[in-house]
């Protein structure tokens, strides 16, 4: 009898194992296919970036350059004016992301956990700002920042309105109040996360004598790390790559990486002797690679916190 049972158990274990193997193979194949589609542009960018003009003209060279060169990167570095543009981009991306995290998490918490009569209406307004196509308010908003004033106070004090064009203010100021690029989405993300958290966590805080603010900082914040990472990554990437907003407010005095990248072909053909496509294209892709690399690095750093938060939620949950 026991022997029979043993046999049966080993048999089901074997079936289970082979089943898992089949599943594993299936998913491996599926994800390899999807992964290929997603990595394809990246491979294209980096293989093109190291091609020399000779490789570009050589029809037999498809992916791997026969005489690879790093000169493209050095040239692109110069055309983009990398250090200057990077500092400009970093100011916007880091500054706005930090402000977004602070403001949107707090506002999202307010919408998630406190009941008051007009809450639904205000939240509808938040989503509403998210749907407004940027085209709708480009022009009026530009005028707003061009002649910036708060209820006539600035005019009263300085005798005129402020011109915030070609400063970082049109990015940083609205972000303080959760009004930046796609901030509505970030508020929404935080709200959903806080709403999903067990209310007992906060009650424990209140019982232990914490006020609202301390309960929020000490208990809710550490439990919302996945939301913070997500919002931080999205905000950083979107501001890093944003062209329209930056081109609108920052002119040639403070160009950002994305602005430089959009105009790179023009810079190359203007300042170099060779305006041949076999030179321009690889240099352009070297520029693209230079802009992408920091983003990939930021993601890899952020991802480590992603994994950490699993263990955290295990402790608290």
């Amino acid at each position, binding site marked *: 009898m026991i022997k029979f049972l043993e046999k049966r158990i080993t048999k089901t274990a074997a079936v289970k194992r082979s089943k898992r193997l089949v599943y594993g193979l299936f998913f491996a194949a599926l994800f390899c296919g999807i992964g290929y589609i*997603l*990595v394809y*542009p*990246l491979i294209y960018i980096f293989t093109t970036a190291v091609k020399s003009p000779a490789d570009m003209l050589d029809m037999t060279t498809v992916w791997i350059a026969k005489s690879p060169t790093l000169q493209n990167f050095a040239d692109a570095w110069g055309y983009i004016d990398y250090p200057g543009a990077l500092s400009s981009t970093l100011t916007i991306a880091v500054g706005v992301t930090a402000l977004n995290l602070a403001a949107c998490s707090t506002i999202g918490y*307010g919408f998630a956990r406190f009941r008051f009569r007009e809450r639904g209406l*205000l939240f509808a307004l938040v989503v509403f700002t998210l749907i407004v196509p940027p085209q*709708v308010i480009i022009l*009026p908003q530009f*005028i707003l920042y061009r002649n910036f004033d708060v209820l006539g106070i600035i005019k009263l004090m300085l005798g005129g309105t402020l011109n915030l064009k070609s400063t970082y203010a049109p990015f940083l100021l609205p972000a303080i109040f959760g009004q930046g690029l796609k901030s509505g989405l970030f508020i929404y993300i935080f709200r959903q996360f806080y709403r999903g958290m067990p209310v007992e966590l906060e009650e424990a805080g209140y019982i232990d004598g914490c006020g609202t603010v301390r309960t929020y900082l000490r208990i809710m914040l550490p439990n919302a790390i996945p939301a913070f990472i997500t919002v931080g990554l999205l905000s950083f990437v979107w501001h890093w790559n944003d062209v329209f907003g930056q081109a609108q407010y920052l002119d040639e005095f403070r160009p950002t990486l994305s602005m430089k990248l959009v105009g790179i072909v023009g810079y190359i053909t203007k300042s170099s002797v060779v305006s041949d496509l076999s030179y321009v294209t690889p240099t352009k892709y070297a520029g693209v690679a230079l802009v992408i690399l920091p983003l990939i690095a930021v993601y890899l750093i952020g991802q480590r916190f992603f994994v950490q938060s699993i263990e955290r939620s295990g402790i608290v949950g």
Partner: protein
Amino acid sequence: MQLAKKKRRRSALERRKALTGRIFCYFWVVGFLLFVAVPLVQSLQYAFSKVEISMGSISLFPNGWRNFQTAFTTDAEFLPLLFDSLTVILVDVLLVTFFSLFVAVMLNRKFRGRGLLRAVFFLPVIITSGALIFVMQSDVSAQFAGQTGQAGMPMLQTVDFKQTLLTLTNNNPAVAVLTDAIDRVYQIIWKSGVQILLFIAGLQAISPALYESAEVEGSTGWESFWKITLPMISPIIVINLVYTIIDSFTDYSNTLLRYIQDVAFGTTLDYGYSAALSWIFFGVISAVLALSVGILSRRVFYMND
């Protein structure tokens, strides 16, 4: 009497909490009034005017509902574009949501190379935003099949198969929708980056204790998915739905949006008419959004409510 006292005390606490909540939320309202409200109202004004821009100064000539009338009666391009983007979006939203949930659940399991694979699925967020796609679209748009809407790789194209199916089914519109969806596989994969990220974050916020206790009770993985993962992730499903709708409406590849932009800054420079079109478009998005969120939010499960 004791009961009445208790009740009053609780409502005091509630009132205090309502005040705190108001402080948190009205902070946003202040920003809204400072930075967004005025441009919005002005844009609405533009929609009802003929706008002339010359050398940095703007003059408005109010013309009532004229712009809106033009949009619905004389403009030959606007309405077809609007309906096109609506049908595309409805199909896309469903596919993107299913696909990204599936991928996120897969990526949330423990296996070797998970970090790498997650990084791969984050690539669309990097590549399809702003400057990069702008630069790359100019000469290799065919290479990035998903971006332009025409799949550049012939392997997975369903063209011949589609024709056969359509003739077999006597041009059944349902089949056309299906084959179109398959044609858009590339686009769906490319559009799902943000949604996958959100789903992964949502999955990680689910306490492992729930799964452990379910396993102890003898629940299978399938059952755990339906009884734990799906309800717990449902708030994120709503936000992904909202995001996907908004994203498809405000995407660069949206032909309608390009048209609106063209009217304003392209050949005609008719900013007033462009504003009117934007507001119509905007009204349609709001309606779609309100409808879908209304249907879904009744089924959403929040841990506390």
